[in-house]
């Protein structure tokens, strides 16, 4: 008789909380966060700047003690046995962390010795990584002279040097050009294929969408949606219609609000000259929208059914677009209570 076993878990967190004092005011960066990451996956942690991604990552990597809650990473308790966690994880922070005044090779050798490799073993491991990440041309140079892409390659090499079970990457592609970004994505996929669990934070929608096997969206310190990118987009978005008017009227805000209160429409958003609608019934809402636009004297140039994006998921959950979530809430998108009930 075969019993289906739950997949082995690489990261498990319950009720994590962390607040900081900023100018005598307690700001809760992480507020009751739960997380489960299955082994051998690329887990994307998506959210706008300031959502609590980095704080969560710092708690999971033993850099920061949580105020409350518990977390297990690679089988060890983050709070009670941080040393065990440190042996089993790799970390590439947002700031990078390569030592600018040492050469790439020196960086690799020191890191190897810190994980307990002998001088000989460290040298051969460094050699392997220099080949794997194609660092040979500049490994003997001081890191300060590296380009952004070279530096990032070295830093990822430092992060995986000891073959960690779980690798944490904090916004790894920020500041990289498209080619280096694509290279890094490939390296991350290869690591996953060789059995490493990769936990990666990002505020790029396409990165979360294309790279992650599993995804959690975080906002205001807790997870608001979880699943595979495909599941999330299907579950939350329903149909999405994009209408391109011949000419947009002056008052975009009132148009957005009017559209959002129309029947069968959950959210409306005007972006780059087109109107993006998340709807519950494409056919019937289309008719309603066309007649409303006709009433307002707005001619329609094109209308199409669009693939829902992760931004639609975020928009649905928070009423804001992830693209401008750093800005004050409201205005950019309008949300309707009734729509939420229909979607549920």
């Amino acid at each position, binding site marked *: 008789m075969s019993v289906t076993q739950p997949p082995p878990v690489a990261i498990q967190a319950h009720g994590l909380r962390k607040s900081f004092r900023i100018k005598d005011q307690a700001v809760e960066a992480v507020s009751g966060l739960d997380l489960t990451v299955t082994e051998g996956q690329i887990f994307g942690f998506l959210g706008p700047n300031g959502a609590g991604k980095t704080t969560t990552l*710092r708690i999971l*990597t*033993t*850099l*920061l003690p949580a105020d409350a809650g518990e977390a297990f990473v690679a089988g060890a308790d983050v709070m009670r046995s941080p*040393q065990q966690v*440190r*042996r089993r*994880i*790799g*970390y*590439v*922070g*947002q*700031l*990078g*962390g*390569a*030592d*600018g*005044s*040492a050469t790439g090779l*020196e960086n690799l050798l*020191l*890191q190897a*010795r*810190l*994980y*307990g490799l002998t001088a000989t073993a460290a040298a051969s491991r460094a050699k392997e990584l220099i080949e794997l990440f194609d660092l040979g041309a500049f490994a003997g140079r*001081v890191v300060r002279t590296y380009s952004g892409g070279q530096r990032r390659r070295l*830093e990822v090499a*430092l992060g995986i040097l000891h073959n960690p079970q779980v690798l944490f990457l904090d916004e790894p592609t920020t500041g990289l050009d498209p080619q280096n970004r694509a290279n890094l994505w490939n390296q991350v996929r290869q690591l996953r294929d060789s059995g490493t669990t990769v936990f990666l934070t990002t505020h790029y929608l396409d990165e979360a969408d294309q790279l992650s096997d599993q995804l959690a969206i975080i906002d205001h310190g807790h997870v608001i949606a979880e699943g595979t990118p495909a599941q999330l987009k299907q579950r939350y978005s329903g149909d999405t219609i994009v209408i391109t008017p011949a000419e947009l009227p002056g008052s975009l805000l009132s148009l957005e609000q009017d559209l959002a209160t129309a029947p069968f429409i959950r959210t409306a958003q005007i972006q780059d000259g087109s109107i993006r609608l998340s709807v519950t019934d494409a056919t019937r809402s289309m008719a309603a929208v066309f007649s409303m636009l006709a009433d307002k004297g707005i001619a329609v140039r094109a209308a199409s059914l669009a693939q829902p994006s992760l931004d639609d998921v975020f928009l649905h959950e928070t009423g804001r677009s992830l693209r401008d979530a750093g800005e004050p809430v409201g205005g950019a998108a309008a949300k309707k209570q009734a729509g939420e009930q229909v979607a549920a």
Partner: protein
Amino acid sequence: MTFALQSELFFRRKLLETLRQPVWVITGLSTPLLYLALFEPLLRSVAGGSGLPAGHVLDVFVPGILTLMAFGAGMGAGWVVIWELDSGVIERLRVTPASRLALLLGTVLRDMAMFVLPGVVVIGIAIGFGFSAHWAGLALMFVLLAFFTAACSATSSALGISLKQIGSLAAVVTGVQLPLTLLSGILLPLSLGPEWLRVLGHLNPMYYTVQAARDLGAGTITTTTVAIGFLVTGTAAALALWWGTRSYHRAMT
């Protein structure tokens, strides 16, 4: 064993970093030599006057210069720590199993070395100018002042980690430097000053280091002053190392 190895690894890293920036090696040496060349003639005219110990002017002056060198060698640590915080180096090292004390000691040991090496050169030159060397006393003086460098270095690292900004660190260090050095009698003995100044001096831990260094420089080893100097300086170093290690445990940008 691992701890000793890690400390050595971090020490070598820091030493290499210093040797790659010869500017620091040069200024570390040129400043005390300038003191010798420019301040000594000035002091010579007041030597033998009231309040100043008898003997060759260099015998009074050299222990003070060395204490200043020990102070300077240690107090620079915080600047590099802030730079390492900003570039994520400390964060990366904190995720490895490396000991935080070893991490701190890398810098502290480097600073001790960067005090002792130029210090020996300065002694050599001072002897040429008439400084009378008492070898056992000198050796002990270097040990004492190396502890003092350790205290300064660990304090500077801890300050750098808590202040996080180069500007704030500079303000604190320069703000503290003047009263601390003046009230220790480093360049001019406090006995020249009024009563209240001497009282203030006794509240300054650095005062006891300087007093002990003077005794040791003169070759008198078994005095209470020397014992108190070692006790105060050693305690300061231990406290600073504890503070520095604690700071590394929490270091965050």
